[in-house]
């Protein structure tokens, strides 16, 4: 980290002080409110992404939001939260590039306020509550800096009705492996064929590295999730995804997999337009898509072919009950809530 901006409200927060101490040689820049910087006009996301700064801030207002109906992995009460904004990875299909003006990473250091809100939410019902992390950020990628996972799991060991999904592409699983597995925490990895990882998921661990992390988590008893989203259309999709599923299913104990989700490439229309302007040279974003609802997605017939092929492969191994669809409308609603 070359530059760390520190919001006035968290300047003396113990977590801020610890973090600044560990990054003493970085430039420390005081700011009044993180939004002054994060939402400023004239930022170039693409350029900033090459060398993002870190912003330490306080999350005010609503910290835990309900997911849209239909979004979930088996639970009925589903919520999501973002203790960070933005991601260290640079996936060309990622909607964050369209949602934020800035590529800088925001870490909300008031973790305890998130935990309090989650606890309150859990206590509102006798039903179990699911909390999804990793929507506005990667849940684990910056964990060596933030220490969020440890703080959260310490707190949630006692909360028997709260279930958590940590969604990631990162292999930073040390904080999980050094503690006992928690059956109420699903570590869900986004997976793509290696050729797509190389071409579109810049800076991410390879498929083999992700599978290795999943194997180690499984061996330690952690429930794991597989997120096949987004599936990307290409002329060799059947062959590419066929080999990919063979590789994934062979590497893991599929009987012990908690869940899988499946969704094809789609973006809210406004984000797709913004991304196309940001990356006019991206082959993925130049591919033919059509407007459906509020989203840009593959033409319906192409999407159906693509997903049917994948669904068939997944259900054959995993069964239909543990596979969940990510619909277009879900993506749009989530994005609208987050922004």
């Amino acid at each position: 980290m070359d530059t760390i901006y520190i919001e006035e409200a968290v300047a003396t927060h113990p977590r801020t002080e610890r973090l600044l101490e560990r990054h003493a040689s970085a430039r420390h820049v005081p700011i009044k409110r993180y939004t002054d910087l994060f939402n400023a006009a004239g930022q170039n996301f693409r350029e900033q992404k090459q060398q993002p700064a870190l912003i330490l801030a306080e999350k005010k207002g609503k910290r835990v939001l309900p997911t849209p109906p239909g979004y979930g992995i088996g639970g009925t009460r589903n919520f999501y939260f973002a203790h960070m904004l933005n991601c260290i990875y640079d996936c060309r299909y990622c909607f964050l590039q369209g949602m934020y003006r800035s590529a800088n990473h925001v870490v909300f250091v008031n973790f305890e306020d998130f935990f309090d809100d989650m606890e309150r939410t859990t206590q509102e019902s006798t039903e179990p509550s699911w909390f999804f992390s990793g929507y506005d950020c990667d849940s684990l990628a910056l964990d060596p800096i933030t220490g969020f996972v440890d703080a959260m799991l310490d707190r949630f060991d006692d909360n028997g009705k709260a279930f958590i999904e940590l969604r990631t592409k990162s292999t930073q699983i040390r904080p999980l492996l050094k503690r006992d597995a928690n059956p109420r925490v699903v570590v869900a990895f986004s997976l793509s064929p290696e050729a797509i990882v190389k071409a579109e998921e810049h800076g991410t661990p390879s498929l083999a590295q992700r599978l290795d992390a999943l194997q180690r988590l499984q061996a330690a008893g952690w429930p794991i999730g597989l997120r096949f989203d987004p599936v990307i259309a290409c002329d060799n999709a059947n062959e590419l995804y066929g080999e990919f599923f063979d590789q994934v299913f062979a590497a893991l104990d599929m009987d012990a997999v908690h869940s899988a989700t499946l969704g094809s490439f789609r973006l809210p229309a406004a984000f797709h337009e913004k991304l196309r302007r940001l990356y006019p040279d991206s082959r993925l974003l130049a591919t033919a898509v059509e407007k459906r609802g509020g989203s840009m997605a593959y033409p319906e017939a192409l999407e159906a072919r693509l997903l049917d092929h994948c669904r068939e492969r997944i259900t054959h191994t995993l069964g239909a009950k543990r596979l969940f669809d990510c619909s277009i409308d879900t993506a749009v609603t989530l994005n609208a809530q987050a922004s």
Partner: protein
Amino acid sequence: MPHSPRVCLVTALAAEARPVRRELRMARKDHAAVHRPLYVSDQAVLVETGIGKLPAAASVAAVLACYPSVRGVLNVGIAGGTEPIGSACLAHAVQDRASGRRWYPDLPARRITPTIQHHTTVETVDAPDTQYRKDAVFDMEAAGVYTAAVPVLGSAGVQCLKVISDGPEHSLETIDKHVVSALIEGQLQAVVALHDYLAARSEPARDHNTEVLQTATHIETNIARHSETEGHRLRLMLSRHLTCIGRMPTAEELAPLDTPRALIDWLDTRINNSAVTYG
């Protein structure tokens, strides 16, 4: 061959500009649209704006309009502050005192500017101020430079380097043009490092769009006139063609297509037939 500078250097005073011009081997150039002293080298153009944020904004706007090749602007000058006299301060924020408006430049990596020990807020004032503060240095131009340059180049493309010339122990009255030149001279290494950093700045999206616009202009001028909506669609299709096929359509390919509809259909077919394979 047209002159295509990558960097625009901005100083208020001739005394600030002199050591920079000498170091970068810049020569005087007259330009009908820039009514201020202007100097050029292969890579850069330097403008002496005069004192104040309005002359600074006007001069920078004029230079950016005349030289669309410019990818970065660097404001170099003296400022008042509490840091030691002669030290270089890179702006992590620029604030216009009068309006309260603020800009946050995306700072270059520290390895790029190893000689710069200080970073600070540069507060642009309308009249010299001697109420020196620890949290900011005072200048009279930076906010004007940012007003004009950020909308064109974004927050990563505009940097501001100030050399401390006056402070609680050194009054403004002790400064003359020789002192100013000597202060800037002492920080030329930092100036050159920032110049090189901005000159190397690449904007692939801008380059891509320039190529698209050239072909779109060729089509409108030589092949088929079109409405605003058709023009927008055509540019989008040309951009996708460039990405999917790897090049623009040639003049020979475009020649038989004499209506906007025919052009768009032809481009659509080409794009949809282009192969997408991974691995």
